[in-house]
């Protein structure tokens, strides 16, 4: 399953994130493996609590205690980054891997001018004097489509609208030219009309700078429009990963099928949207075997006892017993 290291910018292998609590350890991200190639957009979808954001936080070393990486490896350009010291991972943040958060209204420090925050970030990662840092900051504001950036640079976040603030956030995340951006629901908090603008801005900038994107979202529409490949997560596990077009048009895993079925399409003749029965289990109550088995329409005894591993089906990888064929099934649970 592992592809040669040279072509992969980011490799996540058997990543496990857990939360030790008084009543036992909760496993929030369970044995997740994927890779992102340079310049590629990987969409990560799943319901709230599926472990998407935690996977992102684990990669960039910002898990909040008591959350911790308890297994697996994260490699950036072939170099392990999951076991680095604080100071080393700090130097990777922003410079190698940038991050965009969900809510632009709260992502910017309200007490500092937009320019101060940009200049500070630029100067942290490159040896720039005040004047050239300011010039670069203005250029970045212009690049993310902020009108009259020479004026706006000296304004405070509360003087910007939500969409404009998210543009500033994107400028901040990209300004040290990272090779990878982890965008955690970058449009969820925005108006629908602004969402499309922000997504196309992110897409354009990353294409121009050759930045890879890990796009975390629960919006399949955004994935369809943006992602090269898509990873579907459920209850902390990866259930399907493959080329976006293939996964969307020809979903394999029953959960992915359910997700696709719950998207409304224009001209649909059906009265109601299809929905997946039940809800995702809480971390303390993940069932034995396949985590999806209580909600799965195709469930069998085997699903209740044994956990399926990812295996290649056509050109995607799926973790489901329905597709067990040539590959020798692993009996690990």
């Amino acid at each position: 399953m592992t592809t040669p290291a040279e072509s992969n910018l980011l490799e996540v292998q058997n990543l496990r994130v857990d939360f030790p609590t008084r009543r036992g350890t909760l496993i929030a991200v369970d044995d997740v493996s994927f890779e992102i190639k340079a310049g590629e957009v990987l969409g990560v979808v799943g319901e709230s609590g599926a472990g998407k954001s935690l996977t992102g936080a684990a990669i960039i070393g910002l898990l909040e205690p008591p959350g911790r990486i308890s297994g697996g490896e994260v490699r950036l350009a072939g170099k392990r980054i999951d076991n680095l010291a604080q100071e080393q991972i700090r130097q990777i943040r922003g410079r190698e891997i940038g991050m965009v958060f969900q809510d632009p209204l709260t992502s910017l420090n309200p007490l500092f001018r937009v320019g101060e925050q940009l200049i500070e970030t630029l100067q942290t990662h490159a040896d720039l004097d005040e004047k050239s840092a300011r010039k670069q900051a203005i250029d970045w504001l212009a690049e993310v489509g902020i009108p009259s950036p020479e004026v706006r640079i000296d304004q405070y976040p509360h003087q910007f609208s939500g969409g404009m603030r998210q543009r500033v956030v994107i400028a901040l995340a990209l300004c040290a030219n990272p090779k990878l951006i982890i965008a955690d629901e970058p449009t969820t908090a925005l108006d629908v009309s602004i969402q499309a603008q922000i997504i196309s801005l992110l897409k354009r900038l990353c294409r121009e700078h050759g930045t890879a994107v890990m796009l975390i979202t629960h919006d399949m529409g955004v994935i369809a429009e943006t992602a090269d490949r898509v990873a579907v997560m459920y209850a902390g596990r990866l259930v399907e990963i493959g080329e976006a077009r293939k996964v969307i048009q020809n979903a394999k895993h029953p959960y992915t099928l359910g997700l696709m079925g719950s998207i409304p399409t224009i001209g649909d003749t059906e009265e109601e949207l299809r929905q997946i029965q039940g809800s995702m289990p809480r971390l303390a109550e993940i069932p034995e075997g396949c985590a999806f088995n209580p909600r799965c329409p195709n469930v069998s005894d085997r699903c209740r006892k044994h956990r399926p591993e990812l295996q290649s089906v056509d050109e995607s990888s799926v973790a489901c017993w329905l597709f067990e064929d040539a590959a020798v099934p692993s009996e690990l649970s």
Partner: protein
Amino acid sequence: MLAFIIQRLLQAVVVMLSVSFVSFALFQFVGDPINNMVGQDATEAQRELLRERLGLNEPWPLQFIHYIGNIIQGEFGLSYRLGIPVEDLIADRLPATMELVLVSAFMALALGVPMGVYTGLNRNSWLSRLFLTISLIGISLPTFVIGILLILIFGVWLQWLPTFGRAGVVDLGWWTTSFLTLDGWRSLIMPSITLALFQLTLIMRLIRAEMLEVLRTDYIKFARARGLRNRAVHFRHALKNTLVPVITITGLQIGSLLAFSIITETVFQWPGMGLLILQAIQFVDIPVMSSYLVLIAFLFVLINLVVDLLYFIVDPRLRLDSLSRGAH
């Protein structure tokens, strides 16, 4: 911004007028001062003469107007007890109290803020626990007990520091200071620690609580995600966001430092305003009492004005005139 300042100044005037009315009313209701001033054997004529000299025979509204007029000119009347102008008494005592309060406030801030930041960042370290335990003592022990304990340990047992009084004072003509001599500092140190301890623990606990709150916010996470250095994240981004409540509390506390100084000054026989007012109360020296009231009120109003202005400096969202431009 200017409109705001003018509005605040007008409010301050109203507050000062009300306070001076209360302090003026003291003269009307707290007994007849003439009895305290002249002996039992004084004749009625002598009493009348004194009453006239002190302006106590006029109708009260007229007296009030005179009173306000005098205050504005910096004349607070004669002390009944000492027979000298109150403003001279205050000018004599004010430097002692102000220096004590200033040193205490500085001590509380200079130690309380870093301790608060430290305990907020390292919640579980043993040093944080030590700080929090000490702060519990600082909050729960009354000021006079702390003062007496300090006197016992450093004054009596170890004999490092003087136990009372204000030694080594240098007279600058318009101000007396203990900052210029070693003896001055030696006698200043115990009273100011006594006065500062409660404020220090309060500020430390406040900053700690605010830090814990702020460190959870998205902008701190985003600042970390941008790879900013810990120092910048903690002391620039986080600390500045904790400042608004800290400024409020510090402002109020400087006011109460002035008030608490009565106890500390009594314990250490510190020749400040606190000691003055205490002696004035014992003697029903109303001009001193009412002037003290007016002066403390004035200092409170002044501190609050400064606090309001500091908000503007710290938080740009409050600068209303800039809001209108940001309606993008």
